[in-house]
């Protein structure tokens, strides 16, 4: 073992001096960095995972495609408009899943008695859960978005205005905001109702499914629920209907397409309140 060099400052894992406080960002960098390095070690496995994710995204579109083979227009949208909605929804959801995908498993930590070890650490539970299992394979969905979204936008829309460009940029980001907010909700819910993952899935994945289809085709109560309660339709169908000039159902104004950032803020704010309540509701077994 090498002798410590006198006078040199001892360095921590963070690469900072011991006397400096660890910032939140630096910690995130270390936590996520360690996950990334471990996953990058298995290149073939990662490549296969990315590929299968992209394959999954493509296969889920088959349903919409088959429907549009039989019906030339579905819910006021043509095949290319429906594809645009689908890809935009996958893009937003993919970003959210990459960042916060682990939150929906918060209930498992309660079930397995692993929550205490996280609670005693001097960092917020949310930060820890989000960084616990940062999975690179979730990039697959985002990659599909990065490639297919601009391409479909160019192929489908021909009367571009500044406002439309703005909306096309906002939509996937607002969508990511809405879906991450719903993930905070789902985490809070499964911490309280430990076996209730399917219920939060109903909202989360039901919402994801609904957001990727021409919303005009949905039953009105379903459309109202996923616009105003769990507002996933604001993430793709409504903004893409505005951008691509597709018709909205009677009584649905076009400005709804712009609401995703506002909706994301509301879902996040209420989600954080629910998250705080869920943590306080939790009673450890002294594990």
């Amino acid at each position, binding site marked *: 073992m090498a002798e410590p060099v006198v006078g040199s400052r001892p360095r921590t894992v963070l690469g900072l001096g011991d006397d400096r406080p660890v910032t939140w960002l630096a910690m995130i960098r270390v936590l996520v960095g360690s996950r990334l390095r471990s996953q990058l070690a298995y290149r073939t496995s990662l490549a296969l995972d990315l590929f*299968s994710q992209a394959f*999954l995204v493509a*296969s889920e579109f088959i349903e919409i495609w088959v429907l549009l083979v039989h*019906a030339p227009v579905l819910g006021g949208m043509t095949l290319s408009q429906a594809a645009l909605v689908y890809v935009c929804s996958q893009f937003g959801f993919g970003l959210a899943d990459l960042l916060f995908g682990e939150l929906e498993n918060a209930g498992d930590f309660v079930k397995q008695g692993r929550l205490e070890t996280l609670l005693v650490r001097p960092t917020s539970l949310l930060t820890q859960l989000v960084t616990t299992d940062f999975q690179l394979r979730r990039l697959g969905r985002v990659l599909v978005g990065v490639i297919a979204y601009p391409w479909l936008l160019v192929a489908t829309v021909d009367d571009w205005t500044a406002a439309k460009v703005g909306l096309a940029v906002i939509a996937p980001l607002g969508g990511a905001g809405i879906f991450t907010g719903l993930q905070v909700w789902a985490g809070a819910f499964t911490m309280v*109702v430990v076996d*209730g993952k399917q219920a939060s899935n109903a*909202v989360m994945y039901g919402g994801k499914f609904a957001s990727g*289809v021409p919303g005009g085709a949905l039953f009105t109560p*379903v459309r109202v629920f996923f616009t105003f309660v769990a507002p996933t339709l604001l993430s793709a169908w409504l903004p893409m209907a505005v951008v691509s000039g597709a018709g909205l159902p009677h009584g649905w104004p076009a400005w709804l397409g712009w609401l995703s950032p506002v909706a994301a803020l509301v879902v996040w704010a209420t989600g954080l309140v629910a998250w705080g309540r869920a943590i306080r509701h939790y009673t450890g077994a002294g594990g």
Partner: protein
Amino acid sequence: MRALWELVIGGFRRWARYRVATLTALLANSVFGLIRASLLLAAVQAAGGTVNGYTAASAATYVWVTQAMLGPVELWGSYPREVGLRIKSGDFAVDLLRPAHPLAQWWATDLGRGASQLLPRFIPMMLVGAVTTGLVLPTQPWLWLAFLCSMVLANTLCLFCWLVVNLLGLWLVDIRGFLVFFMVVFNTLSGFLVPVQWFPDWLRTLVGHTFLPSMWQTPADLATGLARGRVLEVLTTQLGWVLVLGLVVALVLRWGTRSLEVQGG
């Protein structure tokens, strides 16, 4: 025989216990059912009232019957996945020591699981469908009997298919790629997302020569009346595929256990 019967009962009891999970699964199935029904009905309407033999009523029935089947028939193979995890952990060795063929053990347990889901998952889901979109169901009791047989055969086929995939774990360390791949294949081509009859002609012909529709589409056809006049024929086809896949699993299992090394005890 007695051991197998005990496994059926055990399977039934185990899955009948997850009450909150059953309730929340019903909620999830209902939400997805409503979205799928919206889409299919919109497509039938936009296409002028019928699509390849489906009217609005039979499309709605197809959606709710398939949502209801998600309880008893495991298209997504979560029980055979347990077998896969037992292979990974080594507990699989215990299955080999038991006094019945492993395949029979798994089949019996899964039969019990499926039966336990009829009352809490299948029937409520059909009620949701009847209330929300309305259903058109067969009235003759013997058609229901045929439907029940078809569900058992479909579930057996799903079990066998997923067992083959999971038994790959006897040779490979990580089979996640295979799991995702087959999930996609079974979801899209068995008639789960959209009816097989709605596929483009070339794809329908291609899929028709495989076991895929027997995993899922066949019981739905019996419930919607699309298999009217061909009941015995479709059931025989299903049974044939069950025997073929059963043989495949048995062979894979035999080869796999030959190469299996159990460490310690």
